Every structure is written in C-alpha cells, then in structure tokens.
C-alpha cells in the first residue's frame, strides 16, 4: 500500500505529529519527575518475601485475570479491557505505520486493525452506557471520564472508516484527515486527561508489588 497524500496531509501526519509527540513526552517527563521527587516507600523491615519478584508479579497482573477477584469474577469485563487496549495500541501504531511504513499496512494487517477498532468502538459504547446507568459508576464519574471514553469511541469509529477507505486505496480522505487531527488533539490533551493513566500504572503496580511482595503476600505457595 502507498501513502500518496497531499503535502498538507503529509505535514499533519508527520512533522505536526512529531511536535505534538515531543510535547506529550515532555509533559510525561515532568509528571514522572514530580512523582519521583516524593519519598518512596521505605523498607527497613526484614523481608518475608521478595520485593523485586513482587514488583514483577504485580506488573504482570494485567496478564493474569485470575490474579484479582475483581477480574476473576468479571471475566467479560476483563476481555473487553484487553480488546480495548489492544485496539488502542494498534490504532496508535497505525498512525505511525500509515505515514512511515505504509507497506506494512497490507490489506490483512489493515483488516486485523479494523476488527479491533470495530470491537473497541462497541466496547466504548458499552462503557459509556455503563457509566451512565450503573449508579455506583455514575456517582464517581467526572465529565473527563465521559469525555475520555467518548473521544476514544469516536476515534475508533473514525479510524475504522479511514482504514476502510485506505483498503480501497484512498489514503487521503476526509476521514483520514479527521483521524490525524484527532491524533494531534490526543497527543496534546492526553497528558492532562485520565487517559494518561498508563504513565502512572507502572508506578502504582511496582509500589504495590514491592510492599506486598516483600511481606510475602504475593508470589507465595499455599500450604
């Protein structure tokens, strides 16, 4: 596949994205710096387990739905989570592949990405519905929660449409423009939004794993 697009779209797909990406990286660096300035959890007690193994175990928690009761009892929710986040990765990936390595976006690869985008769109709709209708979720939801999931859901729909037309050998379409404009917006907005939770994820999981791994709660053998 070839990405024969106008100069204007090329500028949006490449230099503008890089500038925005650099901005995002800078924001994340500041966020991480601010967090690392704070005192971390000390551990002077004699350990009963392994803090390092605990941290690894905790980080890998995302791959073990049986590891937490909350995912064990809601496997459907977990499957949705996995599909949604794979779709996020693939969608972000496609914003790099299309301008940089369009030959990678073969019909097969494009269709796989579209399947995940389509499923993630449906999951997004379900999550919006859940947020609106489940009382305990509704009372904890802020406008940013609705905005973030709505934005992602629309992004998947737009991406799906743009790739549909890409399959038809139409790399420059209105949907592709919207897709990349949204990507630009994401790069600027995400560092300030809850969507940036993935930056905090390793910190939360590692600290959890260090504490409870060191205390012998994680990674243990039952008698």
């Amino acid at each position, binding site marked *: 596949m070839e990405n024969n697009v106008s100069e204007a779209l090329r500028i949006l797909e490449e230099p503008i994205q890089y500038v925005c990406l650099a901005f995002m990286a800078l924001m994340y660096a500041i966020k991480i710096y601010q*967090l*690392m300035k*704070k*005192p*971390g*959890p*000390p*551990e*002077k*007690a*004699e350990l*009963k*387990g392994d803090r390092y193994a605990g941290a690894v175990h*905790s980080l890998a*928690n*995302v791959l073990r739905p049986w590891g*937490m*009761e*909350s*995912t064990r*009892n*809601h496997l459907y*929710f977990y499957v949705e*989570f996995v599909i949604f986040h794979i779709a996020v990765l693939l969608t972000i990936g496609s914003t790099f592949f299309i301008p940089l390595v369009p030959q990678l976006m073969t019909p097969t690869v494009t269709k796989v990405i579209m399947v995940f985008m389509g499923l993630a769109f449906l999951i997004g709709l379900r999550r919006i519905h859940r947020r609106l209708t*489940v*009382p*305990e*979720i509704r*009372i*904890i*939801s*802020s*406008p*940013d*929660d609705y*905005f973030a999931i709505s934005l992602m859901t629309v992004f998947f729909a737009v991406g799906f449409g743009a790739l549909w037309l890409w399959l038809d050998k139409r790399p420059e379409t209105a949907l592709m423009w919207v897709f990349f404009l949204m990507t630009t917006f994401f790069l600027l907005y995400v*560092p*300030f*939004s*809850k969507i940036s*939770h993935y930056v*905090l*994820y390793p*910190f*939360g*999981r590692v*600290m*959890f*794993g260090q*504490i*409870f791994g060191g*205390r*012998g*709660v994680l990674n*243990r053998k*039952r*008698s």
Partner: protein
Amino acid sequence: MAEAIAENTAIKTPEEARENPDKLGMQKDRKWPLKTEFTPEMLAEMENLLPGKLNRIVQTSLAGCIHCGMCSDACHYTQSIPDDKRLLPAYKADRFRKWYKGRYDWLGKVFPSLVGARKLDKELADEMYDLLWGGCTMCRRCTFNCPMGVDYGMVVRAARGIMCQVGRIPKHLQDTIDTHYNYGNNMAVPQDEFIETIEWIQEELQEEEGCEDFTIPIDKKGAQYFLTLNPREPKYYPLTIQSTAKILNAAGVSFTVSSRYWDLTNYAMFNGIDADAKLFAQWIFEEVKRLECEYLLSGECGHGYRGLRWELPNWLGGVPFKITSVMELLAQIVQEGRVKLDKSVHDEKRFTYHDSCNIARSGGILEEPRIVIRACANNFEEMPHNREDSFCCGGGGGALAMPEFSERRIRAGKIKADEIKGTGANVVLQSCHNCTDQLKEICEHYHINAKVMNLAELMDPALVLTD
C-alpha cells in the same frame, strides 16, 4: 521523644516498681484539642498540611484512579450496605481526591469541574470526615482488587492525619491515643497493677496440672523473646495471656514481658499522626534493647502486629533485633514438634478462621494460623474468602473506637457474618482483639451461635503436658 525516655533512665526492678510505680508515657500529659466542626481556619490549616502528606504512594494513588469501579465488589461496606453507593471505595477516596486535584492536577487547576476537582470547603470536609473515618477500615481489600494498584489504605490514612491535625477526629479514638501517650499503654494500666496482674496470672497458671514450674518472667534480661501484649489482655482477657504463657513454657521458649512498655497497639496508625506512631514504637524498641532480647514478639493483635513487624523498622530507621509474632511462633512450635497436641479435645467443635486484614493482607501471615489450627483441631472449615481475599470484619481501622459510627460498623459486618454462618462453625478463630470484639458483636447481631477465640486459646486445651 528522647527526653521522655531519658527521664526514665533509672529503671526499677519489678519488685521496686510494684511498691513505687513509675509514671510511664510522656511526663507531661496531653489532651488533643478536638473540634466538633470544620471552621474556615481549620480548612486553611488543612491546605497547609496537604503537601506534607503526599508521598509517592499517596500521590500515585490520588492521581491514578481511573474510576473503573472494579473496587465496588471488594469492599465489605458496599457488599454489606449495597443501598448506600457513597461507600464505594473510589467514591470515598474521591472526597480527598477532588481536593487534591483542585490543587495539583494540571487540568483540575484550570477546569476543575471537568475532572471533578473541588476546593476544600466545609461540605467536602464533612464528607471526608463521615466517609474516611466512619466508612473505611483501611483494610486494603480494594487495593488488592484495583487494576492500577491504588493504595486506598494509605490515601485514607493521609486524609485522616490531616483531619486529626486540625482536631477533627472521633473523640474516643483520639482519647485512646492520648491515653497511650500519657500512660505508656492505651488503657492506662499503671505499672504496679500490670505487674500484679501478671503475677496473678502466673499463679493461676501454676495451679494448672503439669504447669507447676511455668513462669511469666518480668523484665528478664537476655530472654530470647520480648512478648508484647494488647492492653485488653491484662485488663479483660487475662486467660489469653495465661494460654500464651502456657504454650511458650511447654515449648521451652525463653521469653519475658516488660514491666514498663508492653503495649503492642498503636492507634496512631489509625489517626495518621506519624510522630505518635513513632513514639509508641520507640518505647517498645527501647525496652527490647534494655532487656537484650533477640526477638520482639508481637502478641495476637492485627494492627499491633503490622505496626511492630512492618512499620516500626521504617519509622525508626531499622532495628538491631528480629521481629516476629505469636502466630508465627506457634506455627514454628508445631512444625518443630516442640509440644504434644491432642486434637480430639476439640472434636465437639467446628472451627473457622477469620484472617485479620493487618495480619494477612497487610502482614503476610497467611499459612501460619492454618498450620496451628490443623495441628489442634480436626473440624475446620475455611470461609469462601480467606487469606488475602478475606473480607474485613468491620472492626479494623480504629472503627471500634468510633461509637458514632457503630451502626454502620455493625451493618458492614454482614458479609463476614454471612460467611461465618455459611461454614456452620461454632467457633470463629482469629488473632486480633479488634476483630474479637467486632466478631462477637456481629455474631450476636446476626444471630450466629459461635464463640470467638484466638489461636493460643485454641492450642492451650490441646496441649498434652503429662505422659
């Protein structure tokens, strides 16, 4: 702190102390100034205190919640009181998080309503008071079920510390801490009364068959284990001390109790005031060093165990002795075959075990109680949620010292009561005095005909002392 310890350097022998007891605790009594309402001045002071409470865990936990709601099933409050949606862990923590976001979240500073940020006002502070003192036991079950690893226990403790600092803390809870501060233990047991109680328990013990030579040494230098106690034991449950001492004697364990600082509880873990928590830990630390013991031995007490085993070394920057617990020592005694046990004495009973949150989930003692139970009883049934998955009984986090929230506390114990009932057990074993009191209350309230016992009380009757 150093001053308080230095003033008591002329240590008396137990005999001298019985005749002329020391004033233990801080020499100058304190009464924490309590407030019944948040005032604008208090809110301003809370704003000043907030930055000091934001360590890496608290900050990550405040910033990291994605409002997924996965914590909804994890909390004993939400499980037991499903009609009150405000008891969802994320909602409770959000009372604090909204304030945090208004000050620290980039978007929250510019568009507060977009991210649910709020200025700290009386209404928000009142909600924090209600839900973070009276709606959370800091059991960390939600933390274990949070995909992001949000440490709700630490978040709630930080919020409590700020509220306490300005005087908004349930009175009875703070009274308990003040008593500890003023008298060296949280029930103001005077030194002479404590020594007499221990001597009386020793006499009672020696009257038991096969226990004639058993002792409860006080201030014995060089003993291997420094046994700490919950003040409820000398005050209301002396038989618990008797059972523990009997097992330790039977197993040939060298141990001692201090005539001075023996209280293992540390309610400052519940009010979030680190200086007090360190002070109480320091008293125990100094006594272990004075008596030159190899091990600091925590008695059967949930938060007390966690405070000594996992927090004390961090508060004091390390310790020159080892720290363990009666629960672990009993398991070791069983595994090493140091006592002979007859399980059949308990054949009429059916047991279940409640894992105290601070002992299991936050403490790492998960298998040891089961080693003891299996060695002492044939009829044991696990609750559906056990070990680190165990539900809090509702008595943790200082809840028993907050009578204004008693009704909610008892209601929150329903999930645990249902699980106990489901086992058909007529004895609920546990290793924590706060759990003991809560379990007794919920058993009575939910019409469960079950006795509540700790591990030493289980093991004591099973001991075979004569050939």
